[in-house]
């Protein structure tokens, strides 16, 4: 099944009894605070335009109240928009009939929740088959598929446990297995790892990345953690007060933050693990020197390899092994430390 992209276009969400009446006012520049004070409505999302790559991980990042959970709920329409479109494979999810929407949710989407949202009275296996049961797949077939995914997420042997008998990390593995068993194209992860311990979180990120390598689903991942966003996201959108502040690849965001808000986030990031060698290499002049580094190597790995090999210079090679650029250790190190301009901004702020 080929994955399809999701296009979010001009999406507005205004919470309140007459949200629709204020869309035009918001478009003309009515602010969130004013809308709340004068009209008693809450501005959830405004003018969201994101195209989520097919078969890639789209991360939506923002602090609490930024509207990120509201946004992800528009993709399977757990929340109805006030205005705008959510297009999947050319169809506007927001205009689907109840029946079409149910079919869309059953076959095209699967969701993982922050607080797991497992059924406490069902075992791990019975929780995992839930989506297939709703679709009407036979018991034997759905259990076979569910067992496969339970094993893939590392819960073999726990099929007959109840969620309460598992730790948070294990419960979220059940949540993931439940979503994957659905075999849906879109995987929606709403702060799926936010409730987990840091170590287990990294562990679960690895699980997702490994699975994604072969599954190539269109993943929408919500998080408030920039490190998580940078690790997982093929594309990242940063939300603030219901508005997209910046979107692009992790490197674009780290290297050229759009404003002070994002700069403040970015300066805490371990740049060595985000920036790739090809981003900072200079054009090749003459013969390639030193050791070869594959495209896509992050600076930290490059520095480790070069210091290990006691060389100061290296060249970057593409997937065919052809040299495409050169760099040396000082360049790498200066790119790894936070630029002074960012520090200045912090001092000023």
């Amino acid at each position: 099944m080929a994955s399809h992209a999701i296009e979010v276009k001009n999406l507005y969400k205004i919470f309140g009894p007459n949200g629709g009446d204020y869309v035009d006012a918001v478009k003309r520049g009515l602010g969130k605070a004013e809308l709340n004070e004068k009209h008693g409505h809450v501005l959830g999302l405004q003018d969201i335009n994101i195209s989520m790559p097919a078969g890639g991980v789209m991360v939506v990042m923002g602090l609490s109240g930024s509207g990120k959970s509201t946004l992800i709920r528009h993709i399977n329409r757990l929340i109805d928009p006030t205005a705008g479109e959510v297009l999947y494979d050319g169809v506007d999810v927001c205009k689907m009939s109840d029946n079409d929407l149910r079919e869309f949710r059953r076959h095209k989407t699967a969701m993982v929740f922050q607080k797991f949202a497992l059924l406490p009275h069902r075992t791990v296996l019975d929780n995992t088959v839930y989506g297939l049961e709703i679709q009407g797949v036979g018991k034997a077939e759905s259990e076979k598929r569910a067992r496969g995914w339970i094993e893939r997420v590392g819960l073999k042997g726990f099929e007959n446990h109840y969620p309460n008998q598992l730790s948070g990390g294990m419960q979220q593995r059940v949540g993931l297995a439940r979503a994957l068993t659905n075999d849906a194209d879109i995987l929606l992860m709403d702060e799926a790892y936010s409730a987990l311990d840091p170590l287990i979180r990294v562990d679960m990120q690895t699980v997702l990345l490994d699975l994604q390598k072969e599954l190539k689903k269109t993943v929408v991942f919500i998080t408030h953690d920039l490190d998580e966003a940078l690790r997982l996201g093929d594309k990242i959108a940063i939300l603030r007060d219901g508005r997209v502040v910046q979107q692009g690849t992790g490197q674009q965001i780290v290297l050229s933050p759009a404003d002070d808000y994002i700069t403040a986030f970015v300066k805490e990031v371990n740049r060595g693990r985000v920036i790739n060698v090809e981003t900072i290499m200079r054009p090749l002049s003459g013969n390639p020197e030193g050791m070869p580094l594959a495209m896509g190597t992050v600076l930290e790995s490059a520095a480790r390899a070069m210091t290990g090999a006691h060389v100061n210079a290296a060249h970057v090679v593409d997937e065919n092994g052809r040299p495409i650029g050169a760099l040396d250790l000082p360049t790498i190190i200066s790119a790894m430390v936070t630029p002074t301009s960012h520090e200045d901004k912090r001092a000023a702020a």
Partner: protein
Amino acid sequence: MASICSVLPELLCKFPAIDDGTIRLARKTIDDGFKGFVRSYGDAIDTVVQPLQWFLNYLESLFVGSPWIVILVLMVAVVYLGSRNINITIGTALSMIAIGLVGLWNDTMITLAMVTVCTLISILIGIPIGILMARSDRVQSIVNPVLDVMQTMPSFVYLIPVVMIFGIGKVPGLIAVVIYAVPPMIRLTNLGIRLVDQEVLEAADAFGSSAWQKLKNVQMPLALPTIMAGINQTIMMSLAMVVVASMIGVGGLGKNVLQAIANQFFTVGFLNGFALVGIAIIFDRTSQAFGRRLQKHSEVIHG
């Protein structure tokens, strides 16, 4: 008082009641209207509730007619299978033997049959209404005051129309008991469904559940502990009400209590009272233990 009234206009001093003639006329009209209604539709209503009568009679003759040892073994078996608790099981056997020894076995069987039928009917009526209430705020706002009236209206008052329609007998008794015992069933079903975790419901929606699938897979199972508490309450209230219902012809322990009150039979009154307490405790402990067993999965084993 009189001194204040001397300065106040009479209207503010003596409550201006509607005059007696009008009230008498209204009362007569309503009473006659209702009597007319009973005369023309009484037979039809009797026919409609006839199956209840059969069911009651059948169960009563089954309970009373079977050898006591069969009933005792059956009860002990049901209690054990429900509670899986040896103490409750032994307690049940001992209470039933004590009841038999003081000569109340048959009366207890009659009461047991009555309570069983009342509870089943209350559940059959209560759960669907509770579900409807949970699904719609409007239904809730209509049903709630009705339940308030059912619970606070003195039972003797609604015995009047029940007796006028059905006369004296088991079925009117049953209806009176159900009116009294069904509100907790409805209320707790409604409450249980409304308390189901919103995120789990959202997950059910996200996987494309239909309304029925959501009810069957999520709402009812998660509301079950509360619904079980409702069933428990309903049983207790039925047991309390069978005594009052004995005034309109329900037999069993309640009838004995009524006779004891009329004749000041101190010992008879208490023996029958304790027999009621005995079966109340059996029902209560068994249904609670059963409810807990259904919730085994919620025991937190992992810290």
